[in-house]
């Protein structure tokens, strides 16, 4: 629990290391291609997928447009059902609230449902500082926690580990956290799952406090929804006496009818399941059934700032399905850790810089961590145009411009380290708008073509280290046209003979 994403290097530096790790590359290639292909088959079964996708985007956009209204409705509904609502402007405030709530129970241990929001705010580390031990109960999160590792995927946080590595982690670490791994544990999936089941069962049956996130919050009734496929989440949501849920404010949907759209979109996109295996819903507290105290911590942490950006706000539609990660060729090669945040992959590349207000070199590098191939947009179940947002954020990096930080409008300066590129881009754009200059440059390049090097020095090495340089032809197209067609174009020619 000591590792965190703080102080991670910029994406290209991290990726230069991870792309050279053959085991990581093999694990990721195998896992992403398997899920990718299953998702494609599951989605192809529905003939109204395009309409579902459009509906998902529309519901999210409408909710975000009136988020203030729906949040107040949600707060009222949760309170009316016996829950307590807390508002957290940022990670520190959320961590303070949760720590206080756990302390008030007198407990020193909590069980956790897999949750992105608590990863985002570093809750486990904050609880550890207060002397409270948090046990992750999602199988993949358990592997990450036992291995003193970082999550590298939204849905499958231990996707970078193979079965042999998981067996070794279980054998080595389980005993330090509770029930040790069975003697002679092999790397068969059945045995690994059974070892985890035995280890976790002990936690479920003794824990008095559960901590979760939520996939959705239904404003009209104050109902929270957790969608999972192991059943471990349901154990944590039903057995403890106190339940604390930390949820990003954008997880609100107005009605149960809206939920119907997402309960179709999410399982097929994330795990390629037709119907989600364990969907747990709860509304406040119920006498004699489930937790006796329920606290909802509504987390902002950069979300209203993101909402202020007309292009970037579509990132808040995200339902954390991971389809964009599984299909991304950059994620597949670089791995999740290179993104320096619990949100890796294409969605992380647009979400992290916005939630953190473009706050440093890592955040400034993330919008460039994409070849703009568009596979992410194609599979996104809520139609987030990730390439559009990436390019928009690149503009913020190189040109600066307005962003919102903690509710205040600030104008960013252009990021450092782009001065030469900026000069080159502007010079190129100027030359392209002055064809005479352009033609002169092309002729100069053609005349000197025998002198061109085979490898470039300095920044050009990024190209020529691995790829041959194109040779410049003796004659540009426009010179050929002028020589063979006699005029400079713009003539009266052009039509069907």
């Amino acid at each position: 629990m000591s590792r965190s994403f703080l102080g991670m290097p910029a994406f290209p530096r991290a990726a230069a290391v991870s792309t050279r790790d053959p085991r990581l590359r093999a694990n990721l290639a195998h896992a992403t291609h398997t899920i990718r292909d299953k998702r494609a088959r599951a989605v192809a079964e529905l003939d109204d997928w395009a309409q579902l996708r459009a509906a998902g985007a529309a519901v999210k956009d409408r909710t975000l447009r009136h988020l203030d209204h729906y949040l107040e409705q949600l707060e009222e509904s949760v309170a009316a059902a016996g829950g307590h609502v807390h508002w957290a402007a940022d990670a520190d405030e959320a961590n303070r609230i949760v720590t206080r709530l756990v302390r008030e129970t007198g407990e020193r241990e909590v069980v956790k449902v897999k949750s992105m929001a608590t990863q985002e705010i570093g809750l486990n580390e904050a609880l550890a500082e207060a002397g409270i031990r948090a046990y992750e109960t999602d199988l993949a999160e358990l592997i990450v926690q036992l291995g003193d590792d970082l999550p590298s995927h939204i849905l499958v946080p231990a996707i970078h580990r193979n079965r042999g590595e998981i067996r070794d982690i279980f054998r080595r670490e389980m005993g330090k956290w509770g029930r040790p791994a069975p003697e002679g544990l092999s790397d068969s999936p059945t045995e690994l799952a059974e070892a985890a089941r035995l280890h976790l069962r002990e936690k479920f049956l003794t824990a008095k406090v559960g901590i979760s996130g939520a996939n959705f919050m239904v404003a009209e009734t104050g109902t929270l929804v957790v969608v999972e496929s192991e059943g471990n989440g349901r154990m944590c949501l039903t057995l403890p006496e106190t339940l604390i849920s930390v949820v990003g404010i954008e997880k609100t949907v107005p009605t149960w009818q809206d939920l119907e759209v997402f309960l179709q979109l999410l399982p097929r996109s994330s795990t390629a399941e037709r119907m989600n295996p364990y969907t747990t819903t709860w509304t406040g507290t119920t006498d004699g059934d489930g937790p006796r105290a329920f606290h909802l911590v509504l987390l902002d942490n950069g979300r209203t700032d993101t909402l202020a950006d007309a292009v970037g706000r579509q990132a808040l539609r995200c339902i954390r399905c991971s389809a964009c990660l599984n299909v991304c060729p950059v994620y597949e090669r670089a791995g999740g850790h290179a993104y320096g945040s619990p949100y890796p992959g294409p969605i992380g590349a647009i979400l992290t810089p916005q939630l953190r207000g473009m706050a440093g070199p890592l955040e400034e590098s993330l919008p460039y961590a994409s070849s703009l191939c568009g596979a992410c947009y194609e599979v996104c179940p809520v139609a987030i145009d990730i390439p559009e947002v990436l390019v928009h954020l690149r503009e913020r990096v190189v040109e600066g411009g307005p962003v919102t930080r903690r509710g205040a409008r600030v104008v960013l300066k252009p990021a450092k380290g782009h001065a030469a590129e900026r000069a080159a881009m502007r010079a190129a754009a100027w030359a392209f708008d002055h064809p005479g200059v352009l033609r002169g440059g092309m002729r100069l390049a053609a005349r000197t073509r025998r002198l061109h090097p085979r490898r470039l020095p300095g920044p050009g090495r990024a190209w020529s280290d691995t790829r041959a340089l194109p040779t410049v032809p003796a004659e540009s197209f426009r010179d050929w046209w002028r020589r063979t067609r006699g005029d400079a174009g713009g003539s009266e020619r052009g039509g069907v003979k």
Partner: protein
Amino acid sequence: MRVALFVTCINDTLQPRTGRAVVTLLERLGVDVDFPAEQSCCGQPQFNTGYRHATEPLVRRFDRAFKDYDYVVTPSGSCAAMVRDNYPRIAARAAAEGRGRELTEAAARAVPKTYELTEFLVDVLKVTDVGAYYPHTITYHPTCHGLRVLGLGDRPRRLLEQVRGLTLKELPGAEECCGFGGTFAVKNPAVSTAMGADKVRAVTGTGAEAVCTVDNSCLLHIGGMLARQGSPVRPVHLAEILASTEADTAAGGAAGRAAGAEGGAR
């Protein structure tokens, strides 16, 4: 109909034979194609790197250059996608920033008449057999912007299937990006190269003599990696295949020629 060739800056400068192939092909199909010299670059490198404002003069230039034409044909999926997908976006942002509707009107004129070559052949000229002869084994890589932004679908394949003498080998993982991505290739060289290496491995594994795309920019990357590895597999633009005829082969022309000095890579 008045038809203009938008050759693109990369082809103009580095791969002029692709432009010449489009002219040869269209003229053979009875289209008198013009080349307005006022054209330059669509602005994609600037726009995709974050320099949106620097692309605005190029949107205006594109509109001026092709104002008098009914069709603009370009041998590049990504440059066509830049015009069709991003020009309206650039215009909308300029209008939202209070700089009027000039770009909106320019984009409205440019978008509907801009066609990637295979779209123009299949949708406008309604031909798939263009009378080509290319006695080689090739594999086809559908480049991302043609595939996902333009939705070229099976148009390139339908054209290739009608080429006499040509054997088309299936490319495994065809729809995965080759890793070029414009400035991505130099901003994230490790990932770009890792993606390229996988693409090159897939291409080589088909046993094809050449890898074909509708984008020479991606071919600079794929071909550059093949050449650096000393592979005999050569990059070839679809237009050059479609332009080839038996007469060319007999004369040692485009179809018979391996990547020569011009427009090759080293």
